[in-house]
């Protein structure tokens, strides 16, 4: 991940993205790009603009100014809450969204996603009866139905217990290994440190840092701090 706009090999790039709601500026000229197979975490305090940035990258809302290199149909989107129908089975949910996505062979896509999520044996179960972790896996699988080069996840582990969280990150790392660029937002900075190649630090709509977790620690200077303490110090030094 680089703060420089759109490298030729970038899976997704944002250039000078601005978003205003009335008088409030939610994003102030954010630019970054992510390469294929890269995992990028967007972190920052509450109200920093993390979800707004993700929703613009995902095509849920247009930017007030600036550009995004990918259209909505080229990007897989996974909202924070599982956006699935609890009365439908796992397979029916996948099939419905595969059809709506216009996937050429919906049944094959469903089979592929069931295998990828490890939910083949629960394909016929109503989604509402599955655990939160399994629901989130289906939620992510729906985002991947169109085989997108980029997957955007909004707080993907927020409602999961530690064991479910581990399985989720294992799954996401597997996607990245397969070449999918993954951009996620999180409040959990340890997760960003552990699973992200790159962290984007947003505060008050401004991109303050873009680089590796170790790079963020180096920015603060003192090597004794853990990542979370370094992040807090980084924000404090910049007046947030």
């Amino acid at each position, binding site marked *: 991940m680089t703060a420089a706009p759109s490298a030729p090999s970038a899976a997704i790039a944002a250039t000078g993205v601005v978003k205003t709601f009335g008088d409030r500026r939610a994003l102030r000229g954010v630019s970054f790009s992510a390469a294929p197979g890269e995992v990028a975490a967007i972190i920052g305090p509450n109200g920093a603009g993390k979800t707004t940035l993700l929703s613009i990258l995902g095509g849920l809302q247009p930017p007030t100014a600036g550009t995004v290199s990918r259209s909505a149909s080229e990007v897989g989107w996974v*909202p924070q809450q599982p*956006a699935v129908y609890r*009365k*439908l089975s796992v397979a*029916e949910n996948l099939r419905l*969204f595969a059809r709506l996505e216009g996937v050429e062979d919906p049944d094959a896509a469903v089979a592929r996603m069931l295998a990828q999520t490890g939910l083949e044996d629960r394909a016929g179960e109503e989604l509402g009866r599955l655990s939160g972790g399994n629901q989130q896996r289906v939620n992510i699988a729906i985002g991947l139905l169109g085989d997108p080069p980029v997957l955007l996840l909004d707080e993907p582990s927020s409602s999961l217990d530690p064991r479910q969280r581990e399985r989720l990150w294992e799954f996401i790392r597997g996607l990245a290994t397969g070449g999918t660029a993954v951009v996620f937002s999180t409040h959990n900075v340890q997760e960003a440190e552990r699973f992200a190649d790159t962290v984007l630090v947003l505060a008050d709509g401004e991109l303050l840092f873009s680089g590796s977790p170790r790079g963020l620690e180096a920015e603060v200077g003192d090597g004794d701090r853990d990542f979370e303490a370094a992040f807090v110090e980084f924000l404090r030094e910049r007046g947030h």
Partner: protein
Amino acid sequence: MRWLLVKDLQILRRSPLLVVLLVAYPVIISVLIGLALSKGPDKPTIAFVNEVPAGETEFTIGGEVRDASTYASELFKSVEPVRVRTRAEAVKKVKDGEVLGALIIPRDATEKLRSALSLSGAVELPTLEVIYNQEDPIKAEFVESTIKARLADANKALSDELTKVSGQYLDILLRGGSFRILGRGFDVLGLQRTKQVLEGVRADLPADDPSRPALDEVIRFAGLAIDNLDLSDEILGAIGEPVKVKRTVLDGASTPLDRFAIAVAVTISLMFVTVLLAAGMLALEREEHAFGRLVRGLVSRTTLVVEKIVLSALCALVVTLLMLGGLSLFVALDAGRAPLWLPALGAGAVAFGAMGVALGALAREVRAASLLAFLMSLPIAFLALVPSGSVSAGLFDVIRVVSAVFPFKASLDAVDAAVNDAGGLGVALAHLAALAAAYAAVARLALRRFA
């Protein structure tokens, strides 16, 4: 849109309780309302005390024997009599709430009636006693008005008899004849014959006879009386029924009440199923967090609005067509008009569906949307059923405007026209189309802040 429809039907299929409630509730409500509209209240139970001794119920009018119980039966046309022996027993039943009221015919009722009709000069008329509780004003009003109406009918029947008898007496006075009073027979010469006799006597008198002027005066009086008594039948008829009513229907359908009740019941079902389903299913997209995912290029917001309208309209159409089919087993509906049911019900369902999605888009949560749909539907239905003249003109104008803004009145007009040939189907369909477009536009606007 096809896959969204399939998805929603799958969800409904897996929510049997919701489907049962959604179908059963409006059907039950509408059938109850239909029954209430088509049937009058049950006959009130009234304690009845007849103190007149057995065999003493007969009286005579104009030489003809009548039985007072014939007139008393008029009273029982609108009440369910519970016969008791004494006044005290009747009062106790009213106090205990076993009956709504009591009617007491006193011992001397027939006797007083006989005296009044016997030309004996007696003027005291029989008086019936009515007893009822005042603790429930609605019941009291109902009992009082029912008994008053029936007593008026009984009085009218007696009055007709008296008028007839009076006419007969006047006819005898005019033309002559015989009649009986208190067992004695009388022969009456009659005014016409009297005049003829007097004119014969006058003709035989000399021209200068001193009694001629007096005789002329009596003959003139007899002529005048004859001319005026000729009109007595009409005058007596007018006294019996001084005001006649001519009914002229200026506007509106001539649908019988039971068939109009069917139109009301079907329209209420159509409204509940469609509005609740459309509002709930749209709000469900947000509650399942699927809305954002859907409108992110998979489905347009307009398509989503249309899909929910189509879904709810189709379901309501099936329910109401089945309902009409079922009702036609009990009430004779014109099967030849069945092809018109579909456009009427379809247009109503689409307009209600559009209103439902507008409510769902505004409320944004299933429970809030369902509550809002329910709270809005019932008053709208009742307002649309308020008849003109039952409230002030200004208030009725307000009610008309409010009713025109919501689809119930137009749907009722369309269903009534289609089922009962009440006329005005085209206007109602155009009204529904305009309302559907307006509500769909409101829903589409509300979806901008739905996610």
